């Protein structure tokens, strides 16, 4: 192990510390995977905070029946305190909350942030395959975010600002019928750019992982996080062009009088839903699969044990990704699909539970027999396994069209996807963040604060979303600004939970401040003998350029076990 580390030190100092860019040039022009990863993470944290504030305001409105908060917000933001402006702003808020959390928080954090930072380090590559594309990918995302912000201030429905038709952008709500003003165009263009950014990024990941692995790092010796990024990159590459097509048709419908989705001209709004979900179902796996990879590595590290059933884990991810393209219309059971179509989509959707179960049980089996230390990354990873299971089983419930007919578009669905996203995906992001933060910055964070962050968030977010199952059973539709008094109790519980979760986020912000202020040095490997992947053999933070001389991965090349730098693989 030592020889690898020494090599990299030597290599860096000998050749590359003489022309490091500094100041704004370093980041604006950056082609370095670590700097771009940092940019993505900072961007994701900022977007995540904005999205969280939106959700807290939404939950504040839903704290009690009646409309109390949004008339005020609307009066402050647009000068129009009328009830209609308030209702519109509520719709704009939940639509923006979803778009921000999906496209500007989870995706940039997982793929852009951890993917860029860690994939080259984990596979022993000096950088990404196309460093300039990498730069383009990030700055396109910033442009995309600016377009989304523009939409908030552009006219949407007549006399109203912003787009309030939900992140799904269903026409005619998103066509000139529902949103005549340019707010919808801004959202469409924003998603176009975000899509282009992700396609470029995914091409980069695929090229990097296929071509730039260190000698001895065969595909089936690669750690699970690069595997998960590879699978996700393929999902992005295949799904996003379909979204781009649908969005382009929507744009021409809006601006050039085509009628792809306009029944009066022979079009069909349901066509958009098929195209959209053909993208968006893989998209929801895009949001969780990198999390699988991070959780796998964290669980293995803190159990001090290699991952259980490594090959099964890889094939499970591939199976989930493959099936993810074959189940899109389970989001459309109430659109009037034929019986046979519904039968197929019920069947295909339920099949996904099998590889998902393999993953959950493999994580548990990795922990079984291990020597578990409950440090912050492990807490988040274990929390992930539980909340992802809860969100997964309610997914099996919803897969049954017969019962989805009742629960579709109720708060049950809101509870389900927040369990897999707001708890699942976000927990895995925090697991990854707390795992790699010392590596990326060179500083230790206050582990006591990190544990507080976990427990406050865990209690708060569960309290926020679990009662929403009950509201769904009671028939409360989602995306409503006001509700009948009978729903008051569980909504209040849910809002209180959301506020507690928000307090957890404040702990996180303070933890960041504290970590950078206190400057406790992390050392190469703060996690001990369980941390066997390549990045822990580098200094913290790693030098600007790493693995210019590829590390050699020892061991039996046929062994289906994650590679261990500088060590013979066990058995």
């Amino acid at each position: 192990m030592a020889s690898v580390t020494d090599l990299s030190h030597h290599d860096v100092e000998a050749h590359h510390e003489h022309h490091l860019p500094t100041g704004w040039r370093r980041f604006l022009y950056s082609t370095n995977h670590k700097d771009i990863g940092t940019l993505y993470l900072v961007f994701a944290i900022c977007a995540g905070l904005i999205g969280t504030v939106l959700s807290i305001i939404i939950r504040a409105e839903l704290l009690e029946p009646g409309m109390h908060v949004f008339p005020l917000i609307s009066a402050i933001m647009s000068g129009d305190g009328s009830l209609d402006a308030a209702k519109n702003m509520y719709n704009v808020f939940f639509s923006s909350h979803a778009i921000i959390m999906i496209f500007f928080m989870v995706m940039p954090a997982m793929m852009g942030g951890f993917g860029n930072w860690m994939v080259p380090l984990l596979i022993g590559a000096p950088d990404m395959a196309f460093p300039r594309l990498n730069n383009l990918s990030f700055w396109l995302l910033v442009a995309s975010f600016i377009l989304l912000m523009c939409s908030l201030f552009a006219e949407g429905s007549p006399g109203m600002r912003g787009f309030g038709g939900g992140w799904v952008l269903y026409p005619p709500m998103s066509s000139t019928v529902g949103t005549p003003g340019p707010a919808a165009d801004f959202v469409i263009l924003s998603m176009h750019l975000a899509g282009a950014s992700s396609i470029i990024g995914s091409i980069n990941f695929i090229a990097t992982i296929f071509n730039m692995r260190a000698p001895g790092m065969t595909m089936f010796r690669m750690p699970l996080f690069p595997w998960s990024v590879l699978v996700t990159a393929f999902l992005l590459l295949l799904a996003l062009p379909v979204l781009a097509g649908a969005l382009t048709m929507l744009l021409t419908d809006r601006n050039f009088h085509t009628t792809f989705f306009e029944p009066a001209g022979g079009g069909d709004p349901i066509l958009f839903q098929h195209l959209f979900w053909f993208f968006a179902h893989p998209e929801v796996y895009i949001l969780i699969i990198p999390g699988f990879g991070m959780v796998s590595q964290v669980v293995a590290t803190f159990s001090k044990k290699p991952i259980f059933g490594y090959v099964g884990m890889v094939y499970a991810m591939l199976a989930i990704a493959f099936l993810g393209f074959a189940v899109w219309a389970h989001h459309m059971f109430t659109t009037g699909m034929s019986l046979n179509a519904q039968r197929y989509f019920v069947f295909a959707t339920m099949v996904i539970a099998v590889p998902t179960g393999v993953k959950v049980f493999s994580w548990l089996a990795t922990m079984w027999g291990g020597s578990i230390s409950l440090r912050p990354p492990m807490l988040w990873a274990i929390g992930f396994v539980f909340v992802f299971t809860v969100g997964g089983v309610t997914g099996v419930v919803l897969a049954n069209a017969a019962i989805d007919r009742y629960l579709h578009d109720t708060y049950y669905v809101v509870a389900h996807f927040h369990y897999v996203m707001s708890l699942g995906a976000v927990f895995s992001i925090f697991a990854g963040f707390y795992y790699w933060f010392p590596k990326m910055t060179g500083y230790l964070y206050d582990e006591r604060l990190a544990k507080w962050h976990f427990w406050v968030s865990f209690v708060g977010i569960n309290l926020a979303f679990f009662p929403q199952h009950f509201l769904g059973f009671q028939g409360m539709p989602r995306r409503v600004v006001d509700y009948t008094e009978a729903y008051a109790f569980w909504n209040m519980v849910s809002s209180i939970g959301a506020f507690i979760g928000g307090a957890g986020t404040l702990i996180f912000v303070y933890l960041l401040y504290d970590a950078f202020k206190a400057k406790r040095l992390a050392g190469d490997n703060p996690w001990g003998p369980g941390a066997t992947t390549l990045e822990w053999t580098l200094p913290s933070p790693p030098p600007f350029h790493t693995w210019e001389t590829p590390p050699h991965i020892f061991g039996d090349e046929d062994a289906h076990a994650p590679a261990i730098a500088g060590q013979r693989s066990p058995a």
Partner: protein
Amino acid sequence: MRVSSDAIRAGLAALAVALVAPKAEAQVFGGPKPGEIGFLPPVTEIAENMFWFHNWILLPATIGISLLVLGLIVYIVWRFNETANPVPSRRTHNGLLEFAWTVAPALVLVVIAVPSFRLLAEQLIIPAPDLTIKVTASQWHWNYGYPKSEGGFAFDSLYVEDKDLKPDQPRVITADHEMVVPVGKVIEVDVTSQDVIHSFSVPSFGIKIDAIPGRLNKTWFKADQIGMFYGQCSNICGIDHAFMPINVRVVSQADYEAWLVEAKKQFASLDRVRLAAAPLVNP
């Protein structure tokens, strides 16, 4: 669907006839109640089968799996934490175990799939209707059209603002004119929209179907009990999405006929008939 529960239901129905029939006013309140955590009261056979399927098959499976995982996590953290188990095992494979946890979930899914598919067919194969009602959604109200056989009229159903509510009417989910249907009859609902996509939903009947411009979607119900049933628009449709209540009153045949006489007078005279001008239903 299930012999035993069918038998029980038949028995209960007989009991209900004996007990309830004399006082026809025993009405079901088909809306949400404070603090409740379960389904709204089912009044169609489909809804009863749906709730049975959820409560006796899906719910035990979901709770069971969640508790199994939670239990395993708690046990593993207690048994294999670093103080209790300082030396980790190196075991990374167990073929039999991996086979088992692949096959066992698949078997659970088969158990779920059988009733699920049967129920799906019950929902989607529409029996010959006794009455067809055309439901037309627009921003932001519903319009209910009755066929010529019933007098050929249509009327808008609008949200009732808080200040106009009667004391016993729930806020937000009360409409001014409800759809009225006779008890025990197969009602087909043909749903479409004039502008954006809305969704017609009555939880107690177990129905939800999107109202889509340019399409005519169909669903059906046969309500077994009289009462007032509440639903809401279930697809984001603009600023007043939350204020598109769906009210369906199920009444006895006699009450229905009495209502028809009144409704024909009331709604035929209004220009609200415009939507009924081209009803798709024939007598």
